[in-house]
């Protein structure tokens, strides 16, 4: 693997490719991430989108992308990527297109698609060794439809379908491990609040071929209930508390790219968001807070502090 170009913050691209003025909410963590990713991937890309918040990025006749876009449906964006990739390969193979005209094919979907309805199509794409990047913004719910509980909603979070009572009784699905179990070319978690770590991973992914997952936590002021000004802070807290581990799978190993060392207690993260407010008010729910903490602790207990590998 070649050395990454992004060593320090000042190495990050200073020209920004993604256009402004989209329909996303103020402070959208998903959009923040896409902006950063796009600066690294560049315009020779075709985004194959699944139904979700980001579908409203390209609304006739506007688009913030300098490159291409294809909206598909909620369940089948990886299949759309397959069709585009195969067609590009066919065109190149029989001289109807030059190598320079080739594109990086990027699925853009939310967590609901990625971990639920679209998982069959993802599975097929991995089986076929499809050469594509799967870019998932994880806002931990069906955001576009009003933040109902999705397979990625965290335990205890209130959503539009778990609006009263204990919140979501299920646990967040481990999409990263589902991918890793099937030995993709690359898989990484990122968050927009950590742009250097993100840029390095996108650069790596871009240089590789095969199925590649970029799974981004996407703080969502609208769905999670917080002031849009706090998106970066909440993203950083997710990393510092160990709730959102930053890691990558490459050359057959999972390595953590950031070890939080002495982790901030999870409640510092939970407290910032209305969806967890019921754990603190009117009475503190120590049991659930402790359970969430224990699960995070158990995760990190298996991570080697020195080399970041996971047992």
């Amino acid at each position, binding site marked *: 693997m070649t050395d990454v170009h992004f060593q320090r913050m000042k190495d990050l691209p200073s020209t920004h490719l993604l256009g402004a003025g989209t329909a996303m909410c103020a402070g959208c963590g998903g959009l923040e991430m896409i902006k950063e990713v796009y600066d690294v991937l560049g315009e020779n890309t075709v985004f194959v989108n699944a139904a979700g918040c980001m579908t409203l990025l390209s609304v006739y006749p506007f688009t913030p992308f300098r490159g291409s876009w294809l909206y598909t449906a909620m369940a089948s964006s990886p299949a759309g990527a397959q069709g585009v990739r195969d*067609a590009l390969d066919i065109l190149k193979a029989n001289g109807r297109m030059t190598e*320079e005209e080739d594109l990086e094919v990027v699925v853009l979907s939310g967590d609901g698609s990625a971990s639920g309805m679209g998982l069959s199509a993802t599975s097929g794409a991995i089986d076929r060794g499809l050469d594509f990047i799967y870019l998932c913004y994880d806002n931990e719910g069906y955001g576009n439809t009003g933040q109902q509980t999705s397979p990625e909603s965290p335990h205890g979070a209130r959503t539009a379908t778990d609006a009263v009572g204990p919140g979501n009784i299920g646990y967040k699905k481990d999409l990263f491990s589902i991918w890793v179990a099937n030995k993709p070319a690359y898989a990484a978690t990122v968050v927009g609040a950590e742009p250097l770590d993100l840029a390095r991973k996108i650069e790596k992914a871009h240089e590789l071929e095969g199925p590649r997952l970029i799974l981004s936590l996407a703080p969502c002021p609208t769905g999670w209930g917080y002031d849009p000004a706090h998106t970066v802070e909440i993203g950083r807290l997710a990393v510092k508390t160990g709730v959102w581990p930053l890691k990558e799978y490459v050359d057959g190993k999972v390595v953590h790219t950031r070890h939080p060392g002495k982790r901030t207690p999870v409640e510092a993260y939970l407290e910032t968001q209305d969806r967890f407010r019921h754990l603190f008010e009117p009475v503190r729910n120590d049991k659930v807070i402790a359970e969430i903490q224990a699960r995070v602790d158990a995760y990190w207990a298996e991570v080697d502090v020195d080399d970041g590998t996971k047992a």
Partner: protein
Amino acid sequence: MTRALITGNAAAAWGGRLARMDYVPAFPITPQTEIIETIAKWTERGDIATRMVMYESEHSMITGAGAAAATGVRVFTATSSQGLLYGMEMLYTVAGWRAPFVLVNVSRGLASPITLEPDHNDIMAARDSGFLQIHCATCQEVVDSVLMAYRLGEDHRVRLPVIVNLDGFYLSFTREAVDLPSADAAAEFLPAFDPQGTEFRAGKPVSQAVAVLGGGTYSYFRYEQHLAAQAALPVYDEVAAEFNDRFGRLHPAIESYRAEDAEMVFVMMGSFATKAKDAVDRLREAGIAAGLLRPRLFRPFPRDAFRSALVGKKGVAVIDQNLSMGMGGVLHSELASALYGAPDAPRALTSFVGGLGGRDIAPAEFYEMAHATLRAAETGETPPPRLMYTHSELREMRKLQAAAHVERHEQDIA
């Protein structure tokens, strides 16, 4: 040209081969499997330069088909029945991309109850999807229709995907002698795929299939698609005429069999119409001027052609191999709406549902339909839609029910 004894499924594969399909996304389902197995064998042996990819579902397969067509290659795919319905969301979706390709559907009845045998409820469910539809009755028609479908769908006035339909078992597995056009002749008829600007390339950014806000914008694009489908009517006639010039076979939008001077006309689609032809001959021998109209083109619906072909007829019997629950046969409804208000329209338009799940339609049933229709024309009283079922079928059914009853109450006996 070569003459070959091949099945309807092989004919479908040959259609794609002669069309020089670049890409075949696939997923198996009975009775379509022979199509994709045939193509797989050709690609593995290197007989054709086609790339075939197995998807994990029809929903994905149709997405991939549309996406590849939208990237600029010629796509062929095939499915049947449950598969067509599993992909239904994407049928509607990719039709709106205006990136033409051909999908062969091998018609088969739908669950429930689950069956492998043919009828047209699967393909009728795709009626409003935006795909054009061509229905075949012979293996020869299958090869020819696939070639014609590409010309039709790729025409700059149309730019829509096309379904070519053939009946499972009766056509898919029946061998018939078929004239296969030479590769050169096929290439002269169907030029290389021209994406007409619908493609993805670095340096030529394009957003396809984007969202719209507001009914005005939405309606504009939907109307455009409808107008393109309607424009396919005259284009179809051009394509059929040119096909006839080159290959000596005319496949009109509506096949007419002894209908010109008929006083009573059957209307039905697909391979079962060959049974109706036989019935027409026998009815004529018995002194009844019967005829048959078989729409090959179902979308766009050849309304005006039907109106002029049926003007002045006494009675028309529509035989549907589909059933819209709570309404009746779909083709009957379509024809009724096409004929309504037409000057000198047929006096009686009767509706018969038959051939569901591969159920045969016997000659005697055709005679009965003819008589009932002529009676309706004379009395001016049209009977309600009739579900064809014979006494012997009912007797067989009663035997099965008796067996089921015994099995269910076995413990009572023991």
